[in-house]
């Protein structure tokens, strides 16, 4: 368990931004679009995003992809879209049973095999800096990433991102 800060506001860990029902392990997706749709459905059902969100993310992914090449067999993608489709901020996390290809953010002609998807609902960039930085820290830490890739239970994820 994470210790509760003694003074001031409790700082939120990354897992605190991920609703338990927005955490999906062992997803069977055949494509990036399927993985995004499945996670977007959960965010919509939980009231984080509007019904326009899923299509907007898929469309954006086609022109401005979000696959992040980490030089690993299993990499990460951070699909998201414009704030107008978001009701309140949050993250859906999907761990795929087998990687699917996302296009590389920096080199859209290249494909990146992705096994961990952070689907972001961002409505105000100035208020979500911590959340974004926590995701980057998780992505850049090899142990966390390996843990996410092999996690089988929500509890394992909780301990990695708590």
């Amino acid at each position, binding site marked *: 368990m994470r210790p509760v800060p003694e003074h001031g506001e409790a700082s939120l860990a990354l897992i605190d931004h991920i609703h338990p029902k927005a955490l999906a392990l062992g997803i069977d997706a055949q494509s990036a679009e399927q993985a995004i749709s499945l996670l977007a459905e959960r965010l919509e059902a939980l009231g984080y995003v509007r019904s326009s969100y899923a299509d907007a993310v898929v469309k*954006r992914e086609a022109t*401005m992809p*979000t696959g*992040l*090449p*980490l*030089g690993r067999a299993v990499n990460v993608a*951070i699909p*998201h*879209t*414009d*704030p107008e489709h978001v009701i309140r901020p949050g993250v859906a996390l999907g761990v795929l049973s087998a990687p699917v290809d996302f296009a590389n*953010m*920096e*080199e*859209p002609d290249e494909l990146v095999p992705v096994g961990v998807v952070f689907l*972001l609902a*961002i409505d105000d*960039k*100035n208020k*979500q*800096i911590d959340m*974004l*930085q926590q*995701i*980057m820290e998780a*992505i*850049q830490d090899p142990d966390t990433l390996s843990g996410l890739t092999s996690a089988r239970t929500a509890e394992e994820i909780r301990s990695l991102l708590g």
Partner: protein
Amino acid sequence: MARQKTILFACGTGVATSTAVNATVTEAMKARGLTFNSVQCKATEAPSMAENADLIVATTPVSSSITIPVIKGLAFLTGIGKDKALDEIEAELRK
């Protein structure tokens, strides 16, 4: 004192990855004793906004018509090549 330079952070939506990169670069440059003005934009807005900036840090491809230096920002998301990218930014800020 030299004029404070402006870095334009560009990404797909101008809200997510450019925010994370902006925060990382601001922190790292502060540690190197450098401050700058930061502006975030969508990659599609970069050509028009480049007029008022000294360099661009972009996580997505930006138009080749841009004449100010463009530094690739993906390193700040993946962690791979981060120090080299920071050195490049520092060199531009010290010009």
